[in-house]
């Protein structure tokens, strides 16, 4: 993750303290971890206490939760969805499959570590981590945003070539109609 600390004005500090309380999550449940999310949302663990609720489309989401292994085919869709999200956006790798391949470590079709292709903010270890682990990761993310350190998304804009090279190495050229380099200039990130 890039350690570049943006120089933060007073207003940004206050803003981070307030906006950390509202995070909307889009969980990309191709893997097996999605089954852990209903208990996190419902009455026993209730993640809505922290202002986190599930959203349907990438345009509205801040968190992209990759629950489980990603095959080469689904990685394309994940990257399309990630690029359609609005910055600041946070990728949370859920389960050991996203960390280093998990139980599919020797498979020819699944990707082994997610952060080669997307800037990952947080990992939740565990082969299907329990809701307590998910809630603790959310609180960790909230604290990071509060401190203004959760800026892994800038890394995608800064060294996009590294990510692009890895992506093309795995599945060749795709056209998501999103021009990251041009966005970086236009939005001044």
């Amino acid at each position, binding site marked *: 993750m890039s350690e570049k600390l943006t120089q933060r004005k007073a207003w940004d500090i206050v803003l981070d303290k307030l*906006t950390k309380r509202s995070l909307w999550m889009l969980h990309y449940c191709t893997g097996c971890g999605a089954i852990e999310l209903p208990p996190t949302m419902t009455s026993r663990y*209730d993640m809505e206490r922290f202002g986190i609720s599930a959203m349907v*489309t990438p*345009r509205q989401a801040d968190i992209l939760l990759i629950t489980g292994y990603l095959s080469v085919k689904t990685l394309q869709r994940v990257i399309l969805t990630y690029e359609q999200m609005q*910055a600041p956006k946070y990728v949370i790798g859920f389960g050991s499959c996203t960390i280093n391949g998990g139980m599919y470590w020797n498979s020819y079709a699944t990707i082994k570590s997610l952060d080669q292709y997307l800037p990952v903010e947080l990992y939740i270890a565990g082969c299907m981590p329990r809701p307590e682990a998910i809630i603790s990761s959310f609180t960790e993310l909230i604290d990071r945003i509060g401190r203004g350190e959760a800026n892994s998304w800038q890394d995608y804009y800064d060294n996009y070539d590294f990510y692009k090279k890895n992506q093309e190495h795995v599945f060749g050229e795709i056209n998501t109609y999103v021009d990251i380099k041009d966005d970086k200039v236009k939005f001044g990130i």
Partner: protein
Amino acid sequence: MSTVLWIIFYPIIAFAIGVILLGYGRKFNARVQRRYGPPIQQVFYDILKLMSKRTNISHGWMHDTALVMLLGGTLLTLYFIPVPGFDFFSGYGDFLVVMYILLIPSLGMALGVGETANPNGSIGISRALQMLAGYDIPFALTFIGMAILAGTTNFSEIIALQQAEGIFGWGLMTNPFLGVAALIALHGMMGEKPFEVMVAPHEIATGPMTEMGGKYLGMMMIQHALNVVIELTIYINLFLGGAANWASYLVKLFVLMTLILSVNALFGRFRVDDAVRFMWKVPLVLAVIGVLIIIL
């Protein structure tokens, strides 16, 4: 001078009330589902986060102007509805005007969502307009009934008439048929379940909001907060005898909101044509009976 102050600060007050009402709504839903639920000011956090998004995408100049038209139309409607202490503008436009300027935001949103070129959005808008045709007919009929009863279409005069006889002068008391019909129609207008056909996350990916991100969604949520206040105030002015002071106004707002939320928390979602059929059966029949009582 006080009107100028009202003109400047009234939208902010109405926005604050709307945000608290929506936050209260989410807390209410959570508690019905035996969850702890988000803090009351959660909606404020959401809007702030949306407005402070670093990157925003738009699908064309109409997408932006439509959002401005959406919020502008709602602010226009806000000024034309009398509230205790501020009914300066209702001298220039009666509730017929209000009924029509209520359509500007929905037309604005419809144009903006159409511009985003996403079929989910277009399906959402087509459902929203069908639902509009559904609930607006009984709602308008209750308006007309009240206007014929009061002999005028000016809001402040209708309120004055109702407040003259105290509790029993309320629209709801004098003709319960119109009151109940308007309540059901109001429920449809607020887009609460079972009439929440427009924003159907499971079926059409939050309908119109599919392609709205960042500050666009923020503006839509600001408009939604203001819209809740507007719709409840219209009902209060016509059927709960307006409000003499702000305390009774806020109490009426919360009681009405709780009534609607309690129904919302328990129901699933109707299909579009079933919702419209329901709206043209139960509230329309009640409204027709109410109007017949008034004319004959």
